[in-house]
């Protein structure tokens, strides 16, 4: 209900500050778009051109070449006529050593700044270097492989201008680009992914962004602004020390720290979510990469909760301490563990004590139906708002996925979560891993 009301409120207020006015205005706030890149040689030129085509009067694109071992840097230099410049780099937040800053000799690319740095085995470190190099008060953290809508910057800046309370971060909905068609860096046609993992992830994203995050946004309880696309108040991020490279869930951890800082300052603030599909990103399409991603997320989750356990149930931290963190502990962290415990208890009962099968089946069916209902409502809201998929077959596939998810996909997620927790508790070395890129499906 909360998410529905927040979405309705958003669309009622959509014309309050029309983004076209922001795009024309000289008084818009400047935005730095920070996109770390590691071994993105295959798609980097295409992606940077897409970022540069944003419709907004005052922005810069900062590509952080995070110690790539492929030809990412060479391609950038060749395509954008980059030369190394002297740049007064202030290390306001920690980052690895910078090799150099590059700007284009071609005035068309005057908004582009490339930062070449040593790899610190962490995306967080790359973003920190971008924050240090940024000139504007707001920065957007984006994955370099994301395709952004042309008006993404304008849409994300709006809450910072419209809100009476200080907005310290905002995010938008992220969709999967797997199987979508793109032309000239823009989404042309949206298709439901064909890949097994991508299909379920698409469903997951629909439910998470429309249901979960909009409800949290309404309560001002957002603890996660996705690292793939989020806009932040640079001053606050610097005050709290930037991203921590030792965190695997650096986006969630940063937002938690920002919330903590604002609560301690006793200053009114908001973190906002926009129910707009602003970003398309390539999701992992094979099991190894998918599991690696989910293990990392699970590990990041428990890491963040552990690092900020002093806020848990602490009234000094308002809704963050009293509602949000306990929710994440009980319903995000604990649930996979409880599921496995439940399964073990079930097996033991079957073997030794007996089970009331009718009761068990009834409960299971009730839970399954409830889950399906919640997910289908999100799918319906998604169709109402976005009219997403270009053919009917995609719709049928999506609905089928809804019913298959608890059986096929959910157990994999539970396994990945438990693996992540295990790695956290046994202090296994953190690794981001590499993402194998397919590239975007460009039409002729």
């Amino acid at each position, binding site marked *: 209900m909360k998410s529905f009301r927040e979405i309705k409120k958003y669309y*009622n*207020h959509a*014309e*309050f*500050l029309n983004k076209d*006015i*922001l795009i*024309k*205005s000289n*008084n*818009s706030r400047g935005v730095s778009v920070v996109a770390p890149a590691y071994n993105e040689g295959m798609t980097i030129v295409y992606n940077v051109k897409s970022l540069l085509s944003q419709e907004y009067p005052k922005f810069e694109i900062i590509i952080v070449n995070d110690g790539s071992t492929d030809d990412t840097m060479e391609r950038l230099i060749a395509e954008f006529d980059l030369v190394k*410049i*002297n*740049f*007064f*780099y*202030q290390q306001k937040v920690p980052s690895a050593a910078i090799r150099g800053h590059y700007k284009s000799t071609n005035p068309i690319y005057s908004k582009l700044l490339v930062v070449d740095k040593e790899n610190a085995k962490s995306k967080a470190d790359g973003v920190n270097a971008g924050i240090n190099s940024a000139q504007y008060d707001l920065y957007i953290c984006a994955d370099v492989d994301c395709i952004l809508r042309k008006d993404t910057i304008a849409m994300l800046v709006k809450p910072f*201008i*419209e809100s*009476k309370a200080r907005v310290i971060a905002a995010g938008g909905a992220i969709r999967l680009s797997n199987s979508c068609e793109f032309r000239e860096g823009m989404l042309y046609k949206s298709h439901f992914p064909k890949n097994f993992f991508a299909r379920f992830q698409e469903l997951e994203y629909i439910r998470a962004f429309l249901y979960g995050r909009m409800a949290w946004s309404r309560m001002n309880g957002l603890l996660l602004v996705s690292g793939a696309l989020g806009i932040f108040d640079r001053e606050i991020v610097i005050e709290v020390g930037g991203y921590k490279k030792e965190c695997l869930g650096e986006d969630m951890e940063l937002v938690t720290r920002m919330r903590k800082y604002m609560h301690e300052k006793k200053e009114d603030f908001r973190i906002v979510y926009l129910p707009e599909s602003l970003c398309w990103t390539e999701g992992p399409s094979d099991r190894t990469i998918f599991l690696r991603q989910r293990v990392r997320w699970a590990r990041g989750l428990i890491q963040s909760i552990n690092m900020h356990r002093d806020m848990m149930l602490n009234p000094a931290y308002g809704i963050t301490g009293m509602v949000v963190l306990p929710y994440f502990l009980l319903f995000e962290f604990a649930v996979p563990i409880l599921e496995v415990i439940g399964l073990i208890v079930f097996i033991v009962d079957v073997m*030794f*004590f007996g089970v009331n099968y*009718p*009761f068990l089946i*009834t*409960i299971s*069916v*009730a839970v399954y*139906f*409830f889950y*399906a*209902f919640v997910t*289908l*409502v999100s*799918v*319906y809201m998604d*169709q109402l708002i976005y*009219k997403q*998929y270009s053919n*009917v077959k995609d*719709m*049928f596939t999506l*609905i089928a996925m809804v019913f298959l998810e608890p059986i096929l996909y959910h157990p994999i997620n539970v396994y990945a979560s438990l693996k992540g927790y295990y790695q956290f508790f046994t202090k296994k070395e953190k690794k981001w891993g590499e993402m194998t890129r397919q590239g975007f499906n460009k039409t002729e």
Partner: protein
Amino acid sequence: MKQSLDLLLWYRLDWYVTASSRQTQIETAAKVYAFLQNYFIPFSLLFLMTIVTIIVHRRMNLDKTDQRKMELEDKTNDFLTDVIFLNYNHIEILAKIDQFNLEVVQNCPKIRSFVQKKILKIKQSIKDMNHDRIIFIYNTFGFDKETERMLKHGDWADKSEAFEHYTILDAKHKVLTIKPYLSSNNDFLRSNALIALISLSDQNFDILNDIDFEISKADEIKILNVIYEKEVPLPSNIEQWLMSANASTVSIAIKLAVRYQYGFSAEQLEHLLHHSNPMIRREIIKAIRDLKIDEVGNLLIELYKVETFLKNKLTILKTLRPDNKGIVLNFLKKNFFKETNTDLKFQLVSAIHMFDKKFFDQIVYENPQEQAMINQMLSHYEIAA
């Protein structure tokens, strides 16, 4: 083995409950089971089937709906182009509208709303068109009554939309109707009323004289957009606005002054540079820079000495320009040696470099780190130059 397991069960069950509580639990479980079986599951199944049907039906009909929308759009475009741009008299227009209502609209509220929006869009998009004709067509359809109904009986979103209609239709006679909403407790309604009144105002924009509430940043951007789009001369009230007690009005006035290349008087500059609101001080410093106002070095230096906001100090340093007497340069050099804040130091380097490129050649630093930092700052600006 079985004995130990039985013991385990006994402990498991009796750890928490007494025998009577156990009975209550069993009864509760039975009730839950009955509820799930008889109500929850059947209703859930019904909801699921309904929602799947709605989703599929909606998607399957989407292509047909889109096709119908396109046809409606084409018919409406053809009709409106016909009645607006061709030389029909009122009687002929009335006949055309009747025919259109009969053949296309057919009393369907959604189609009526669509046509209303189309007319407004045309009025908004195309300048230099027959204003009276559009109003005549709009009123003949009864859309004026629709707008009035939205204003009188609608919620804040409907009222705001009504304001927008009046703005697009340039309904100046509605100013008195909209004005009371400036006192509304609803922020959005108040904001939309203000923008509507600015739009409907004459080129003096007198409405800004009397605003006593804070105008948000969003509204400021919208107000400036409205004024710029009207392409009118600089409003004659600008002097009054610059001295207003309302900081929001002052901020708008300063931005307008920059846009229109207004010549600030010395008294105005002094007043604004000493304004109690740091945002106003920053705006006027930026205005001095944008308008390249000379002979204010002393004022800026005096302000720098007492200014507490870092951003304002940085803006002052970016704004300082060379003067004949060298007062500004001496001030910069003095502060360069005392300043410890890196951001300010960086800006001081930039400012001094602009005034005297050889200054830093003459300085020797005891601290090699500071030397390296200054060299890096300088090389940053040398390439920029």
